[in-house]
């Protein structure tokens, strides 16, 4: 819903700047819930893509992360708000790991509370906060722009099929600004197929999908498997092994250490990730032609995850010769950096891939492309929609008509990563080694690295051929 509300927040009375990064940046940290929802967001963005939009944004794309800093300008725009949204969701992940996760440790300090109850109480607290948030949404979102007239009556009153497009368009709140007929109409399976195949034809977009795959897997690797690893480590060493109803203070103390350590390590990695987000935004903007920032992030990932899987102890101190050391903080920081690098750079790649600057990136080229595709598409469309759609699909430079679908495939690729990592990683965690999910992550990052280097070489060769 973060994505669905964003258009209402930025309103309709400004320039329609709407890059592909828009639906995704709120996934900055462990953004499971939202990225998977940008499939629905793609419905929105489909309606917004018109040649006019395309012309309007002929200036270089800027990863929206960096954009959040420039809040001095007052004009509202989706990408700039998206940057702000990214920061807030990132803080949300940090709140969960630094404030919610240590709650059971706090509750276990109370007398007469056993470990099971301490866990249950913290869930009650967090559940209560969720209900409070629901209450605030109920009060705070009254009278949203473009939401007038929606409600239970609409749910039952009209048929689902006939008004689909009209509704989507009203949500944008600017029906008169854009004519939906200008969008080339392709069946959904075709859009999905086109944008998936594009991942294999266009190295930039393919790398973007792969980056999304690694990014989403990272978020699960950090939030799910690091605490699991710590939990298993403590149990393996004979701590926190009593029954859930045993209220002995010794047991509670042992369990408490696991919660606090899990919160520390995941919290540090997400804090580092949040701090590095603007840096990667800047770097991926700076090094447009090479994918150096993404490759650096994946190298960090390979090292970080391999090192984590090989730890003798995840503890920052060497207690009873178990072999812990503060290096673990460095390792989780590397993991955090690789996660944020994959997120930011893959979004940048998709943004640039949609605009179709395979060969270099310059303003005049952009303007030229925009003019050609904008005018061409528009003229042809007015005469014959059929011709227009074939023209647009032939013209590989304007993938704007696939913008929403590309965002959708990006989300799907991330979803696939989570499905694979959770199921296979969880299975191997038990049957092979507790480091298995982290080795999987290292392999994902290594694949990203190899494909990234390969794509870089391929582009260099192509560029040299063109010169000759």
């Amino acid at each position, binding site marked *: 819903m973060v994505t669905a509300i964003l258009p209402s927040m930025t309103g309709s009375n400004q320039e329609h700047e709407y890059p592909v990064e828009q639906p995704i940046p709120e996934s900055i940290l462990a953004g499971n*819930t939202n990225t998977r929802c940008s499939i629905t967001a793609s419905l929105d963005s489909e309606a917004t893509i018109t040649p006019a939009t395309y012309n309007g944004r002929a200036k270089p794309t800027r990863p929206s992360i960096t954009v959040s800093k420039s809040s001095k300008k007052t004009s509202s725009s989706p990408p700039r708000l998206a940057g702000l949204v990214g920061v807030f969701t990132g803080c949300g992940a940090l709140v969960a790991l630094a404030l919610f*996760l240590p709650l059971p440790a706090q509750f276990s300090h109370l007398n007469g509370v056993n470990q099971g109850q301490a866990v249950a109480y913290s869930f009650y607290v967090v559940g209560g906060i969720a209900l409070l948030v629901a209450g605030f949404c109920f009060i705070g979102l009254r009278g949203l722009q473009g939401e007038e007239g929606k409600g239970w009556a609409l749910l039952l009153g009209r048929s689902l099929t006939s008004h689909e497009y009209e509704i989507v368009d009203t949500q944008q709140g600017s029906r008169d600004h854009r004519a939906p007929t200008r969008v080339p109409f392709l069946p959904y399976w075709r859009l999905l197929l086109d944008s998936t195949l594009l991942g294999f034809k266009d190295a930039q977009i393919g790398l973007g999908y792969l980056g999304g795959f690694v990014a989403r897997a990272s978020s699960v690797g950090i939030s799910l498997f690091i605490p699991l690893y710590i939990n298993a480590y403590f149990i393996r060493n004979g701590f926190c092994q009593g029954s859930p109803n045993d209220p002995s203070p010794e047991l509670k103390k042992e369990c408490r250490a696991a919660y606090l350590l899990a*919160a520390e390590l995941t919290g540090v990695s997400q804090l580092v990730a949040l701090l590095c987000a603007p840096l990667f935004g800047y770097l991926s903007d700076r090094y447009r032609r090479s994918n150096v920032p993404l490759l650096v992030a994946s190298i960090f990932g390979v090292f970080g995850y391999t090192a984590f899987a090989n730890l003798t102890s995840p503890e920052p101190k060497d207690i009873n010769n178990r072999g812990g050391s503060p290096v673990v903080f460095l390792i989780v920081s590397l993991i955090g950096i690789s996660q944020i690098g994959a997120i930011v750079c893959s979004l940048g790649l998709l943004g640039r891939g949609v605009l179709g600057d395979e060969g270099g990136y310059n303003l005049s080229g952009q303007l030229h492309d925009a003019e050609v595709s904008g005018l061409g598409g528009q003229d042809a469309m007015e005469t014959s929609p059929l011709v227009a759609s074939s023209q647009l699909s032939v013209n590989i430079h304007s993938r704007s008509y696939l913008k929403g679908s590309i965002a959708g495939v990006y989300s799907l690729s991330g979803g696939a990563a989570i499905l694979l990592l959770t199921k296979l990683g*969880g299975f191997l965690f038990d049957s092979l080694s507790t480091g298995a999910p982290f080795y999987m992550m290292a392999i994902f990052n290594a694949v990203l690295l190899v494909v990234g280097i390969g794509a870089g070489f391929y582009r260099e060769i192509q560029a040299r051929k063109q010169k000759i």
Partner: protein
Amino acid sequence: MAGITFGSSKMSAISKYLPFASSTTTVQACTYLFAICLFSISFLVFLNSSVSFVITDLIGVKIGVGDLVGTLGFVDELVALLACPFWGILSDRLGVRIVCVAGYTIVGLALFVFVQARNVYPQLLLARILFSTGGAAT
């Protein structure tokens, strides 16, 4: 939330400093940033990171935890992939406000239900499905 204390006289003051539309009220903007954005993923992150402790410390299962946790995460993502388009269509009909409120309410209730489970299959799994259904709307 801080947004409630702002009067309606200060309406749209927020659009001077932040990239919001002038039609967006301060209350709306604050709700969006501090309620929706801040908490959209935090409940999922919390559940993901604490689920293994629920299994070991609350239910008392200490063997095969990796596979259980992995399966719960797998089902969560699968349900979310299916529920997302559904909520999206629903939000076009009902409006984002109702869907948002419904989502956080379901998430809150699911967290209460989650710790009532006394076994992993089926109780914890069903609670996780409930959570994921709600989470897809937040």
